């Protein structure tokens, strides 16, 4: 119904030209019901992310370099040395899901920097003056970071396949992979937005981002199974959402034993927690 004004509102004779030209701009759009607000905002933010990726693909290529190096150099070397207990599969295969999780986590963690840039450039400010609740904006941004991460995951999967990693191409498994990557990056991007809300400047966030990404990576099962870790590290790994993402990806892509229900429960919980914390702190960014 809100689309009805195909016929412009009645106009005075002299204003008729203007009315015709601006017809749609004279009628405010109808409100969406509240329950459709979040999905609509998520879609809007994801569309923007895809448009940006379409305009500038260099990031896509440069971001493929690191995971490729990990898989080629680290992966091949340790496949040969054969010291890491992988449960019978080549280390190269074992590593691939870990690198998918790691490289998408990196993208998500630095997404907070993009948010600060958007704050500094006024883009975020303007979005905060639209009928978009904070939580919807954060959820939208979290999934937009997920879109970037999924593109990255596809790139790493292709590299892994070229290197001869045997993965499951079952569509159901791949859908699971997408879900795990999406949830993982939703958590890590919200973590970085939360930190951004606390430290509020790009430089500080850069520093903290750099300080936490490597520990998160090493204190997880991305490179080696938790069974080969000292106890204290195993505790950290057990509260690190990255470990659950890696576990899920291994189960889905390689078909090795994993704990999919627990993994997804933790990832959903972490994403929800991240979105809550980030929405609470987003307002501080605008100030």
């Amino acid at each position, binding site marked *: 119904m*809100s*689309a009805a004004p195909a016929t412009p509102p009645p106009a005075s004779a002299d*204003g008729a030209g*203007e*009315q015709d*030209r*601006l*017809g*749609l*701009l*004279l*009628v*405010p*759009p*109808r*409100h*969406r019901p509240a329950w459709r*607000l979040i999905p*609509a*905002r998520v*879609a*809007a933010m994801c*569309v*923007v992310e895809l*448009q*940006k990726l379409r*305009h*500038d693909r260099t990031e896509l290529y440069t971001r493929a370099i690191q995971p490729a190096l990990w898989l080629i150099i680290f992966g091949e070397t340790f496949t040969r040395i054969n010291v890491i207990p992988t449960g019978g599969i080549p280390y190269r295969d074992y590593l691939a899901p870990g690198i998918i999780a790691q490289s998408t986590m990196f993208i998500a963690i630095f997404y907070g920097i993009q948010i600060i840039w*958007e704050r500094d*450039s*006024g*883009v975020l*400010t*303007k*979005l*905060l*003056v*639209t*009928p*978009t*609740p904070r939580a919807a904006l954060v959820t939208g941004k979290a999934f937009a970071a997920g879109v970037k991460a999924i593109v990255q995951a596809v790139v790493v999967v292709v590299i892994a396949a070229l290197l001869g990693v045997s993965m499951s191409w079952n569509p159901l498994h791949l859908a699971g992979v997408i879900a795990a990557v999406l949830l993982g990056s939703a958590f890590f991007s919200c973590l970085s937005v939360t930190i951004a809300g606390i430290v509020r400047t790009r430089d500080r966030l850069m520093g903290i981002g750099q300080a936490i990404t490597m520990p998160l990576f090493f204190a997880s099962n991305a490179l080696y199974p938790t069974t080969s870790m000292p106890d204290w590290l195993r505790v950290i790994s057990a509260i690190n959402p990255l470990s659950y993402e890696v576990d899920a990806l291994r189960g889905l892509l390689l078909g090795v034993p994993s704990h999919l229900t627990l993994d997804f429960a933790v990832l959903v919980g972490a994403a929800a927690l991240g979105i809550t914390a980030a929405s609470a702190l987003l307002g501080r960014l*605008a*100030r």
Partner: protein
Amino acid sequence: MSDDGLPEEAAVTCTGLRYSFGRATAVDGLDLTVGAGEVFGLLGPNGAGKTTAIRCMTTLLPVPSGMVRVFGHDVAKDRMRVRRLLGYVPQQLSADSSLTGRENVSLFARVFDVPRRERAGRVAQALEAVGLAEAADRMAGTYSGGMVRRLELAQALVSAPRLLILDEPTIGLDPIARTGVWEHIMAVRAASGMTVLVTTHYMDEADQYCDRVALMHLGRVRAVGTPRRLTDDLRARLGADASPTLEDVFRDVAGSGLDGADHKGGEFRDVRRTRNTASRVG
């Protein structure tokens, strides 16, 4: 509108609005009424508190003390409803430089819930209304300052706001670009009857385009009325042979050390922020 300019229904009312950043009070008991359909100019020196007041009206900052209403809705309580009525162009240039003009406007159509069938048409009309139809598919990063401002205007107009708030829309623009921005604002306003609240440092613009202006200094409105009336009042004080302009009124208000405080506008911080705004594109 009556002759002294007081309108029937208010688009914005601020009563006793106060806002402080730490110990620095930016807005200090602001009382302001903007009538529906007016073009209202909020003037005042650097650091007077114009942007802070606007950020309270647009729900960007909380309202710690006092009351702000937009078309009768309490800004502190009814945020979502207030935001649906607003189009906002912030002081800094704020288009996303890594999207095209059309994509920039389209984003705002989406977040204002413009239904899909209407979206392309509405976006095209908004771009058309600001004279950017030709450049719509270029990246906003390649736009000139004047074009970015018009793009932001299109972003604000795509949701058919009842109140358009523009914070220094012509800052850093050349005289032709300035006129361009204003003509597009006035054309849409003539067709839609929306209220326009604008801040500017260009007194000639305020004089030419604003129905009423308020002069802010040190966080408070010190004079308000039609430009004509303010200059008349000053003339009455100076003597009949003086012919003061709005700029003289500005100097009169801003130059006076009100409340015993020195003129504190034009602090380094304020000037630097203004210059950043002027130089940044996209």
